[in-house]
C-alpha cells in the first residue's frame, strides 16, 4: 500500500526583509538603486542576515526549509519537533497548501484539513451555531456533515445553553472549547495540527488529546502534530521528525527524537544564571519580559550543582510592560534524557493584577526530591486558559549529584526521574530462635 503522505525534497526559499507586500515606493526605490549601481551600493539596511547555513542562492534569500523528505502511513500520528524558527511552521504551511514550495513535491492521498489555530474565521457577531457552520465549512466540511454532527459538537464543547448567543459574549474558555469542538469533529484522512492543544484548561486538553488518538487509531487517519509539548508528543506519536535549521535531521521513534531535541535546546554549558539587563535579546512579548533567571542555593548563591537533599530555588525576575490580569509562571524540570519530571506553577500564589513594573517570583524545590542526574529548567509565562505570553523553553540547567541519595546511602545508579525522600517503617513482628 502506498504511504498516505509522501514528501520529496521539499524546499522553500524566502526573501529576507521584504517578504510579500511592499509599497510602490520601495519598488521604485529598488529600480532606481539598480540604475545607480556601480557606485558601490550597499544592500538595504533593514535587510537582516540569513541564519547561518541557510543562505539562499542570492544574498537576500534564505531557505526556510531545505530538502525535507519523509513519508507517513495511514493511522500514524507523526510529531514534528524543532526549535522556533527551525522551519516547522513553513513545512506545515506548505503541506496545508497555504503557501507553495519553491521546489520538491508532496503527495497527500486523502482529504486534508489543517488546524494552524482554532476558531479560524469566527465572526464575533454571529451566534455559536452560525460560527460552527462557518468555521466548519472553512475547514473543508460540508454543511450536511456539520448538521449531522452538530449536537455532538455542542456536547463536546459543553456549551448547549449558549449555542445561540453571539460568540462576542463568550468567555475565552468557551470560545476555545467551541472552536476546538468543531476541529475535533473534522473527518479528513490527513490532519495537521499546530500547537492548538496549548489552549484550554487541562481537562479539556486531555479530552482533545484523547480524541486525536482515537481518530488516528480507530479510523486510520494520519495526524501531523507540531508541538513544543514533549509530553504530548511522547504519549501520542509513534513516529516523530526533528527539524533543525530547515532540514529534517532525524526521523524515527519519538523517544530518541525528543531526547535529541531537548539535548539541543539545553544550553551547551551548564547555566545557573541568565541576565538580560544589559542585553536586548531577553525573552519577551508585548506584555512581559524576563530580566533575569537564576538558580540559587539556600544561601542565595548562584549554583549549578546541588546535593540531592539541598533545596533549589529558581528565581525569575520579570518586567511587566502593561497592566495584566491573571498571569502565572511555570517552571518545568526535564531530565537530561528528555523526560518531563514535573512542572511547578505559582498560579495559587501569584497576584491577580500586575501593574507595569519589575517583579520576582521564586520557586523553591525542596531538598530530598530529585534524583542524581542532569536537569534542564524551563520557564514559561501564560494566562491560564487564555494565551501564552512566553512559551516554555529551557533556559537553565543543573546537576544533582553527591554520594548517596534519599533512598540509599550506597553510591549506586538509581533509576527514576525523581527520588523523593521516603520514610519507611520497619517492624519486627516476631523473632524465631536461631537453630544452633
Amino acid at each position, binding site marked *: 500500500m502506498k504511504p498516505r503522505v509522501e514528501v520529496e525534497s521539499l524546499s522553500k526559499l524566502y526573501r529576507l526583509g521584504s517578504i510579500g507586500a*511592499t509599497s510602490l515606493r520601495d519598488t521604485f526605490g529598488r529600480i532606481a538603486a539598480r540604475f545607480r549601481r556601480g557606485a558601490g551600493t550597499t544592500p538595504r539596511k533593514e535587510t537582516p542576515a540569513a541564519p547561518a547555513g541557510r543562505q539562499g542562492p542570492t544574498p537576500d534569500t534564505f531557505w526556510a526549509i531545505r530538502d525535507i523528505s519523509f513519508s507517513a502511513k495511514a493511522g500514524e500520528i507523526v510529531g514534528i519537533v524543532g526549535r522556533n524558527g527551525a522551519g516547522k511552521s513553513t513545512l506545515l504551511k506548505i503541506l496545508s497548501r497555504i503557501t507553495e*514550495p519553491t521546489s520538491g513535491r508532496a503527495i497527500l492521498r486523502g482529504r486534508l484539513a489543517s488546524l*494552524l489555530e482554532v476558531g479560524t474565521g469566527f*465572526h464575533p457577531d454571529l451566534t455559536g451555531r452560525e460560527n460552527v457552520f462557518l468555521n466548519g465549512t*472553512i475547514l473543508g466540511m460540508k454543511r450536511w456533515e456539520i448538521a449531522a454532527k452538530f449536537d455532538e459538537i455542542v456536547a463536546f464543547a459543553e456549551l448547549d445553553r449558549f449555542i445561540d448567543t453571539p460568540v462576542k459574549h463568550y468567555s475565552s474558555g468557551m470560545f476555545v472549547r467551541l472552536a476546538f469542538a468543531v476541529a475535533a469533529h473534522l473527518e479528513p484522512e490527513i490532519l495537521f495540527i499546530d500547537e492548538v492543544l496549548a489552549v484550554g484548561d487541562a481537562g479539556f486538553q486531555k479530552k482533545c488529546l484523547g480524541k486525536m488518538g482515537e481518530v488516528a487509531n480507530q479510523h486510520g487517519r494520519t495526524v501531523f502534530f507540531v508541538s513544543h509539548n514533549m509530553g504530548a508528543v511522547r504519549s501520542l506519536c509513534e513516529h516523530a521528525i526533528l527539524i533543525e535549521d530547515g532540514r529534517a535531521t532525524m526521523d524515527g521513534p519519538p523517544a530518541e527524537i525528543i531526547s535529541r531535541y531537548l539535548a539541543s535546546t539545553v544550553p551547551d554549558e551548564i547555566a545557573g544564571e541568565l541576565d538580560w539587563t544589559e542585553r536586548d535579546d531577553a525573552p519577551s512579548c508585548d506584555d512581559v519580559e524576563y530580566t533575569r533567571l537564576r538558580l540559587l542555593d539556600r544561601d542565595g548563591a548562584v549554583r549549578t550543582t546541588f546535593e540531592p537533599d539541598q533545596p533549589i530555588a529558581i528565581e525569575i525576575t520579570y518586567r511587566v510592560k502593561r497592566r495584566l490580569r491573571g498571569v502565572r509562571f511555570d517552571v518545568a524540570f526535564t531530565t537530561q534524557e528528555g523526560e518531563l519530571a514535573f512542572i511547578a506553577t505559582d498560579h495559587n500564589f501569584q497576584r491577580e493584577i500586575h501593574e507595569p513594573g519589575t517583579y520576582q517570583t521564586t520557586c523553591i524545590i525542596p531538598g530530598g526530591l530529585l534524583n542524581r542526574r542532569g536537569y534542564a529548567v524551563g520557564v514559561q509565562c501564560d494566562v491560564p486558559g487564555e494565551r501564552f505570553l512566553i512559551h516554555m523553553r529551557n533556559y537553565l540547567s543543573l546537576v544533582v549529584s553527591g554520594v548517596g541519595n534519599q533512598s540509599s546511602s550506597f553510591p549506586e545508579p538509581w533509576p527514576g526521574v525523581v527520588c523523593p525522600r521516603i520514610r519507611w517503617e520497619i517492624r519486627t513482628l516476631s523473632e524465631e530462635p536461631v537453630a544452633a
Partner: protein
Amino acid sequence: MPTLQTSPDTESAPPDYEIHIEARTGWLRVNWRELWEYRDLLFVLVRRDFLAKYKQTVLGPLWFILQPLLNTLVFTIVFNKVAGIETGGIPPLLFYLCALLPWGYFAQNVTTGAATFTNNAHLFGKVYFPRLIVPLSSIISNLFALGLQFAVFFIFGAWFALRGAAVYFGPAILLALPLLLITAVLSLGLSLLFSSSTAKYRDLSHLTPILIQLWMFATPVIYPLSKLTGGDGRFAWIAWMNPMAPIVEGFRFSLLGRGTFHGPMLGVSALASAVILLLGIIAFGRAERTVTDCA
C-alpha cells in the same frame, strides 16, 4: 464514539483522491473541480455577510436603501436642478435611481473585492481553500443590497407611473438580467485584478475609490448616453471604451422604457468583461501563491 462512523463517504477517500503539492507553473491555475467542492463554503460566506451586516448596525439593511436614495437626492439637486443636465424626459429621481442600480452594484463589488487579500490576510494565512471563493461570495452577497434597491426603485417607479410620468414597464425588464450578469462578470474581473495588485502594492488601495469615482463620471449615470454618442460624436469613444456605459443606459431602457439600447456597444462590453475576468483570474492565481508569505 458511535457517531464517528456515520458518514460513509468520508470513511475512506476515493482511491484516486490525491493532492499534489509543488510549485505550480502555467497561467491559468484554477482547479474548477475543487472550486465546486467548496460550494458550501461559498454559501456559508454569503450567509455570514448577510447576517453580519444585518446584526451589526442599528438600521441594518436600511443603509442599503438610504445610500442610493441620498445619492439620488444629491444628483437631482446638483446635476439636474443646478447644473441643468437633461434627463431625457424621465423624472430625475427615477433617472438616477435606475442608473444607480447597476452602478452601485458594480462599485460595491469592486470596492469590497479589491480588499480581498487585505481583509482576509488572517484567514488566508491559516487555512487553505480556493481563494476565489471569497471575491465570488462578495459578488453574491452584494446582490442582497441590490434586491432591496430594486424594491425601492419599483415603489418609486409605480408612484411616478400613477402620476402619469412617461415611463413604461414592460417585458424589456427581462433585459436587466443579462445586463446584471455582465456587470457581475466585469466587477469580478476587476476585483481580482485590483486585489492582486493591492496584495503586492498596499498603497494602491487608496487609488481604488478615486478610480471608481472618476469612472462614474465617464459613465452615463448622471447624464444620458446620448450626451456622449449624440452631437458630433466627439465623445462616443468614451462610451465605447467603457463597458459600464451601455449597461447603465441599458438599464434605463430595460426598466423605464426610455433611453437607448445599444446592441453593438453591449457586445463589446460583454467581450471586454470576459477578457477582464480572464486576466483577473490569471493575476489572482499569481497573487494567491505568494501573498500569504508575508503573514
